[in-house]
């Protein structure tokens, strides 16, 4: 390809424009984060004065870390996203498998009811779900944050699509060899659906790492609050807002996820391609 287009490209004004556009947008898009990093590493007096030679400091991080139990919030968030993803993958694989491979009365109706959740998400039914959690005695627990998200309509939908592409001959062969349905799901379907699961997993983890409203409502103590809620409480003050410390706290809370995704960027895109989410 390049050998054919190369001579044209040398004087291509389109390309120059594309570069200009791409880079301008990139700079605009990274500016808020760049600003957060800059203030987090400089004393608060430089929040509003951009000075290349401002002294560097880690004090904001130290103060933020000491001012709120971020260590505990980390543990909570990691427990939360792991729990949600693990349960989602198990429950939704089972359900998707049933929808993809079994004939039974009411299948389409049930599947339509699953799809309802794509629109009417738990994020919206907060008032009633809060009452349910209160009745179950689960308020202020990590389980309560995850429970409404365990049965994910999106995951069931995606996995069903993927499972349907598995050739029937494969499962007939396995059945003939005396493989149970569960065994078939585990040995044949799940391995083939791995890219879908990876892509879904990434979406799920980032969504629940960053989720705020529902955790804000159901948690009320340090032992259960995830990072987002901890951060919001940290940032609400009766006196003045100290951006350098809040920005340091922001970096503390999103750092690992950010670094993880930057490292796995390529795999992330590829898993989406292979999963057929497009």
């Amino acid at each position, binding site marked *: 390809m390049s050998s054919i287009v190369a001579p044209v490209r040398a004087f291509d004004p389109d390309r120059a424009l594309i570069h200009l556009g791409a880079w301008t947008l990139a700079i605009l898009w990274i500016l808020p984060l760049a600003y957060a990093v800059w203030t987090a590493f400089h004393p608060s007096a430089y929040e509003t004065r951009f000075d290349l030679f401002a002294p560097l400091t880690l004090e904001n991080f130290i103060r933020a870390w000491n001012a709120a139990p971020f260590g505990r919030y980390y543990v909570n968030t990691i427990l939360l996203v792991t729990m949600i993803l693990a349960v989602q993958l198990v429950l939704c694989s089972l359900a998707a498998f049933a929808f993809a491979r079994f004939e039974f009365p009411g299948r389409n109706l049930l599947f339509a009811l699953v799809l309802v959740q794509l629109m009417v998400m738990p994020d919206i039914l907060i008032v009633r779900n809060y009452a349910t959690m209160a009745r179950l005695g689960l308020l202020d627990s990590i389980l309560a944050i995850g429970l409404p998200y365990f049965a994910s309509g999106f995951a069931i939908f995606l996995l069903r699509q993927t499972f349907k592409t598995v050739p029937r001959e494969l499962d007939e062969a396995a059945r003939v060899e005396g493989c149970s349905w569960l065994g078939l799901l585990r040995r044949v379907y799940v391995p083939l659906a791995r890219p879908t699961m990876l892509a879904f997993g990434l979406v799920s983890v980032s969504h629940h790492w960053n989720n705020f*409203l529902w955790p804000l409502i159901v948690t009320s103590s340090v032992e259960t609050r995830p990072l987002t809620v901890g951060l919001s409480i940290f940032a609400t003050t009766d006196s003045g807002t100290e951006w350098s410390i809040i920005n340091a706290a922001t970096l503390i809370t999103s750092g690992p996820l950010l670094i993880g995704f930057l490292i796995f960027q390529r795999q992330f895109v590829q898993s989406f391609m292979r999963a057929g989410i497009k």
Partner: protein
Amino acid sequence: MTVRRDWLTALAFLAPALALLFTFTHYPAIQTLIDSFWSTPRGRRAAVFVGSDNYARLMQDPVFLRAMVNNAIYAAITIPASIILALVMALFVEGRIRGRALVRMSYFTPTMLPLIAVANIWLFFYLPGFGLFEQIRSAFGLSPRNWVGSPETALYGVSMVTVWSQAGFFMIFYLAALNTIPPSLREAAAIEGCRRWTFFRRVIWPLIMPTTLFVSVNATINAFRTVDHIFVMTQGGPNNASMLLLYYIYEQGFRFWDTAYAATLTVVMVAILSVVGIGQFFLLDRRVHYR
């Protein structure tokens, strides 16, 4: 007999997921509808049946009407803006530009940051006088503006943050789609001297149509549920200028503890999403045939 056993197996596979789904989606949706016909129980007073009182109040509540209008504007801005930007980003990054990895990272990074956290950064950007946004404006000789403190601009200020935070996420879907377009098509187009724009309009755009539909469904849902930054930036103010439906539900339900009225608002929200959902289901249906 075997058919029956299959049914039982299917049921066993479905049961856990469906039980949870019914408990936390269908049951609350129905119960919310029922709650909307009752008053809010308070410490000293139990709930009583009030018929359509809550709905009558809704129709006369200027804040609710404002929230509806705001949410429509919010959707009208964030949905197209996010989709167009996501596509533009994907096209930029998919081409052979210098520093592609860096550019892609810049586009994608906002998606990984919690909205609740970036809201503080943006709040600072918008501060009149000393915010960064303002310093850029003043470099162009424009006078300072109190972006989130003025009713005329607060909603736009908030919308911009939403677009910023989600465009990079949608870009990933477009990238995945663009990557499946065979290079041979492009080469053929290049040989025939086809202009970029024509190539995009005739070849790429139709091919990525399913992705556009998928992304637009997501953007629509987000236009109703993305309110995290409101908590930090405006709390729906000033004078409800940036009040969105879900934030209003939160305020009524968990700040004012008026759960019956919050349930009534939720019913409206569910109704809107159902209509949008059914509409998009038909679009998606076409997409499935397409595949």
